[in-house]
């Protein structure tokens, strides 16, 4: 009870101090907010793209395009043979007419197709393999390529792999960004607290003289760092959310043209809470470094 009351008192005093210097406080929060919004924004972007990628390719497929002019019995025999392969889970046949219909339904190209003199599309087998790891997929792909009946075999996971590599790059970039800007946040807090300690030197000295423990003296500074980091996190959240809202507005126009419903997902509740916790923690950490660096230098004489 006593400890809780002490902490509440410190919290109150810290809020008052933030309130008393609105200019400096606002500036610091904005700087921290902007610094944090960059990695957070990048994270949101990555997450949205990743979700798009995984929804497109839940399971990797191999498409097999056939020479034109195959007859039904021949096709059935091929399908049976494919289904007999122990590495293949399921085989789906898409006739060239069905493929054309599908294409006509999708936007943008229907007019073009109407003008074509004949159907340029081949019959296709879509093969869902039992195995999904890259090596086994590659082996199956090689095997299918050796079949003479097939005009062209395409491993549909290839572009996913490229996308994955790109996403990895993005993740790494975000991580580097997050690390450097976190360090910046710690540095900003470190300096703010250093200045505060210097300006409150007399107060620290007097409180030490009348019996304040180190933790009592440290507490308001730690709270200040925590609150500054936390509010910086809130600013970052607002910046990212506002940007997403704006971007999604114009993105909707763009994706409509591609008949996609791709959009940037807003920060989820757990993500938001994690952001607040992290920014608060970093502020606290910066304050802690600063306090342990500077406070012992102030001893009453």
């Amino acid at each position, binding site marked *: 009870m006593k400890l809780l009351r002490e902490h509440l008192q410190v919290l109150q005093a810290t809020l008052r101090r933030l309130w008393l210097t609105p200019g400096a406080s606002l500036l610091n929060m904005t700087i921290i907010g902007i610094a944090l919004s960059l990695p957070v924004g990048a994270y949101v972007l990555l997450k949205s793209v990743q979700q798009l990628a995984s929804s497109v390719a839940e399971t990797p497929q191999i498409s097999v395009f056939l020479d034109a002019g195959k007859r039904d019995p021949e096709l059935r025999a091929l399908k049976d043979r494919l289904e007999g392969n122990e590495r293949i889970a399921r085989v789906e046949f898409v006739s060239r007419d069905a493929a054309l219909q599908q294409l006509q339904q999708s936007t943008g190209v229907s007019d073009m197709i109407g003008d074509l003199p004949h159907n340029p599309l081949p019959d296709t087998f879509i093969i869902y393999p039992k195995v999904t790891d890259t090596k086994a997929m590659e082996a199956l792909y090689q095997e299918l390529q050796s079949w003479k009946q097939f005009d062209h075999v395409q491993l549909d996971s290839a572009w996913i792999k490229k996308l994955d590599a790109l996403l990895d790059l993005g993740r790494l970039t975000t991580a580097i960004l997050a690390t450097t800007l976190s360090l910046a946040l710690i540095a900003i807090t470190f300096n703010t607290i250093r200045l505060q300690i210097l300006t409150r030197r007399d107060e620290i000295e007097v409180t030490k003289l009348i019996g304040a423990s*180190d933790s009592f003296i440290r507490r308001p500074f730690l709270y200040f760092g925590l609150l500054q980091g936390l509010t910086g996190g809130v600013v970052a959240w607002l910046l990212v959310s506002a940007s997403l809202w704006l971007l999604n507005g114009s993105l909707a126009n763009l994706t409509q043209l591609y008949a996609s419903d791709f959009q940037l997902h807003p920060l989820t509740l757990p993500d938001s809470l994690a952001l607040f916790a992290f920014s608060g923690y970093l502020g606290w950490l910066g304050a802690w470094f600063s306090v342990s660096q500077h406070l012992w230098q102030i001893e*009453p004489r």
Partner: protein
Amino acid sequence: MIRFGQVYKRYPGGHEALQDVSFDIAKGEMVYLTGHSGAGKSTLLKLVAAIERPTSGSVLINGHNIRAIKREAIPALRRNIGLIFQDHKLLFDRSAFDNVLLPLQISGFDHREAAKRVRAALDKVGLLTREKANPIALSGGEQQRLCIARAIVSRPDILLADEPTGNLDADYSSEILNIFKSFHQVGVTLLISTHDQTVLQRFPARALHLDHGVLQQGASA
């Protein structure tokens, strides 16, 4: 309550501030510390409050040896000592009330109980009507009394006063010494440093006289 045994204090640079100082102050005693400026009065008070540590010898405060006391144990020791400074050391960023409240905040008092105690302390030094004033708006005598209120608000066993009447005229001095007397009557141990002989004449009590860091024997009033 306060026991010095063959205490030496040498500052870096070789200045010998105290030499072989030994004395005893019993619980509830009121003692003056006299001597010219630079005789070591302030150093002696700093040893009692654990602001400095002795170079050799033992300083026992309420059973704690200052020479060996752990850094973490100092705050608890100081909470039992009321310090009154010549330069007051008041905080000008808050009201008189909040200045006196500070020691109670440090010991984690309930706010309502703390407010009661602060008003009692302010009343004792005659500043109850000035509780909202900023210390900078108070006169020298009032600032000194505010400093006393802050020193006594947590009801310490020991009061240390460094030249409490140093910059004050005679009327103010008497006022402050009357306040000290009243603490003495309720059993507080007081150690008051002064170079003002008239104080000793008007409010006689035992006196420790320092001369160039050496305690003069038999000096008492």
